[in-house]
């Protein structure tokens, strides 16, 4: 993965010093709360319901074992001994003291980490496919471009006070795992006659007005990515609405202007910049690409080893985990291993300091010292030799990190919700836990096949409820918490927004409601049909009837 040189390190160190000064001035009263707010947000610091929350950047989900250990240390030293993986691949800690945040940032800087632009009305952490570089079907490794764009967007002088936040996701695979159509800008990198080109999608996003992104520019030469993005964001900065924060995202502007008119304005700006020093140089690409070259793989033949086959045959628990949580690797003899942070006793995406330390150690032992965070709030060890997979599984079990639930109903996406977040209308974690508890029979869960269930505690949609096969949204009605259910949403290439089932439900009914929805699926599915395929065939009405008929 990318390593800082002295330039990168100076930039992060300067930022720590700057934020220390800003925080001291705020605490002494020299800087007003209103002035301090956007400055602290651009350093990932929120003031939450109970305490501040600090969001630490994990650029495009890549994190080293050294960095993970530093995060574990930080949760012990400054927080309550656990961290949370967000849906944009970042790491959040929920209980730091504001006065100590500059020290946390200084500790992070020592391991080439920061919290720059993880919040605020600026360009946020750029996300990508969690399997970049190791999965089949990839046209190229998107991470060098992610890193080049990370550097470009970091402390960009023109784009620190945008109308609203700005999220970019990049994919280079026919299977889109980065939700590029649900981002302000989604970039799909492709190879075209040995040249890298980018399709640029604009105006996707969830939140109050969920919209799927539209193609703005096809086959942009990749060396023009910076100049083109500058043009897009300049048009947004100049024309995006600033009178109403719920209408301030680029999706509202692109819809209001029309994508063609928006694109014409972008092209006019782009003409100023296209042939400039913003063009990404081949030498820079080479320099950055070198950090993402394949690790020192051992050579295996591609046959599944006999001893592994025996383990799978003889050990049902291991076999389940192997099937659900590991994936084919591009390199013969290796597996991609998913670690589900979806245990029964924790909030989705939460991980304790002991588990963080354990994973760091396992990454060193089994996966070249690198890990990835995922948009599904899990962690990936991307390069595990098949002959060590069983050993890894045993170690994961010791640390309660072997839940064999990837891709199942248990693998929910869930925002922190009303337990932590001051924006939330309702709690989301207890709903996730109630559903997990209700469906604790894993054989039934496996029989249900792949189901994406996403929960958000408010319409800001951090839990991506719009694009879950089953989406749950917490709403507030006269001070009571209710939950609205939608069906049929999906992410990826065929991204679409779920349809609302009907009136909302109380928290206590939610497990029953999900049970009824799943009953309809189980009783009407054809052969190997998945939940979403059955939904597409029969539509929402049978689900509606089952859920509402019996509840009265």
């Amino acid at each position, binding site marked *: 993965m990318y390593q800082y040189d002295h330039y990168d390190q100076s930039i992060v160190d300067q930022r720590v010093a700057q934020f220390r000064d800003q925080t001291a001035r705020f605490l002494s009263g020299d800087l007003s709360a209103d002035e301090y707010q956007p400055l602290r947000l651009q350093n990932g610091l929120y003031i939450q319901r109970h305490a501040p929350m600090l969001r630490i950047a994990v650029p495009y989900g890549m994190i080293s074992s050294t960095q993970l250990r530093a995060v574990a240390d930080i949760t012990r030293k400054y927080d309550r001994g656990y961290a949370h993986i967000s849906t944009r691949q970042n790491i959040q800690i929920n209980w730091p003291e504001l006065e100590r945040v500059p020290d946390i940032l200084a500790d992070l800087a020592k391991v080439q980490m920061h919290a720059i632009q993880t919040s605020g009305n600026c360009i946020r952490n750029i996300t990508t496919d969690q399997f970049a570089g190791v999965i089949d079907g990839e046209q190229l490794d998107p991470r060098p471009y992610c890193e080049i764009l990370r550097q470009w967007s970091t402390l960009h002088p023109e784009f620190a006070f945008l109308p609203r936040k700005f999220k970019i996701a990049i994919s280079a695979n026919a299977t889109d795992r980065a939700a590029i159509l649900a981002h302000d800008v989604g970039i799909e990198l492709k190879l075209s006659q040995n040249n890298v080109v980018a399709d640029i999608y604009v105006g996707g996003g969830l939140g109050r007005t969920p919209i799927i992104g539209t193609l703005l520019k096809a086959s942009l030469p990749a060396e023009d990515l910076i100049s083109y993005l500058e043009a897009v964001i300049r048009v947004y900065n100049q024309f995006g609405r600033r009178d109403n924060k719920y209408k301030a995202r680029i999706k509202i502007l692109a819809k209001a202007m029309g994508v063609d008119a928006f694109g014409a304005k972008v092209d006019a700006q782009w003409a100023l910049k296209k*042939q400039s020093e913003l063009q990404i140089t081949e030498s820079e690409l080479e320099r950055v690409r070198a950090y993402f070259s394949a690790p020192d793989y051992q050579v295996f033949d591609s046959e599944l080893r006999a001893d592994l086959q025996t383990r799978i045959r003889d050990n049902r628990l291991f076999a389940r985990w192997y099937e659900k949580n590991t994936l084919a690797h591009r390199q013969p003899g290796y597996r991609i291993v998913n670690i589900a942070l979806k245990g029964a006793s924790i909030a989705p995406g939460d991980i304790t300091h002991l588990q963080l330390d354990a994973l760091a150690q396992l990454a060193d032992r089994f996966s070249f010292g690198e890990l990835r965070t995922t948009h599904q709030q899990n962690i990936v060890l991307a390069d595990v030799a098949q002959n060590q997979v069983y050993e890894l599984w045993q170690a994961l079990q010791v640390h309660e990190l072997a839940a064999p639930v990837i891709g199942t109903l248990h693998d929910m996406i869930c925002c922190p919700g009303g337990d932590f977040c001051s924006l939330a209308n309702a709690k989301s974690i207890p709903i996730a836990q109630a559903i997990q508890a209700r469906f604790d029979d894993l054989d039934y869960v496996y029989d249900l096949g792949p189901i994406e269930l996403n929960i958000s505690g408010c319409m800001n949609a951090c839990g991506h409820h719009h694009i879950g096969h089953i989406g749950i949204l917490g709403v507030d009605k006269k001070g009571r918490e209710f939950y609205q259910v939608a069906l049929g949403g999906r992410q990826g290439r065929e991204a679409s927004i779920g349809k609302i089932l009907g009136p909302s439900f109380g928290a206590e009914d939610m497990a029953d409601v999900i049970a009824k929805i799943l009953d309809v699926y189980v009783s009407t599915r054809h052969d190997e049909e998945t939940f979403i395929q059955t939904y597409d065939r029969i539509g929402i009405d049978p689900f509606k009837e089952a859920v509402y008929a019996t509840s009265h």
Partner: protein
Amino acid sequence: MQHLTSTAQPTDFYRFSVFDPSVAANQAVTPNLLDWIAADIKPTRLTIAPGEDFSEILDQLHKLQLIEIQFPTFTDGRGFSTARELRERGYTGTLLATGSFILDQIEYLSRCGFDAFEFQNASHAKVAQVRLAQQKEVYQGDARQPLPLFRRRAN
């Protein structure tokens, strides 16, 4: 290779002033954009507020000596784009930031091409001067240094 901005300046080039309400109450020294467009004899100064369409001045930038860009609130970042676009289009006169921008924006403002700042607070103007004299490492090209870091990195 086209340089987006080419106004590399010694740090003492910057001009700092403090807002004086008695002057402002008197009358606007610098005409607003609409008055400037309507004027038969074009003044050499004008003011742009956020959201104003400044396309009509783009072919006359060489005749202007001072453009004031207003910040009605410090979180309204349109002025950053306006400044940078004017520099990219070849404007070499003074770019004056006025209004509610804050001290903590001074680096970004200067990097976008502002070279004159009217502060609300005299002590902030002093601190700003010190800050702009410090050399900081940055990734992007800017008004002082047109090359982005990836074209400057010593390999």
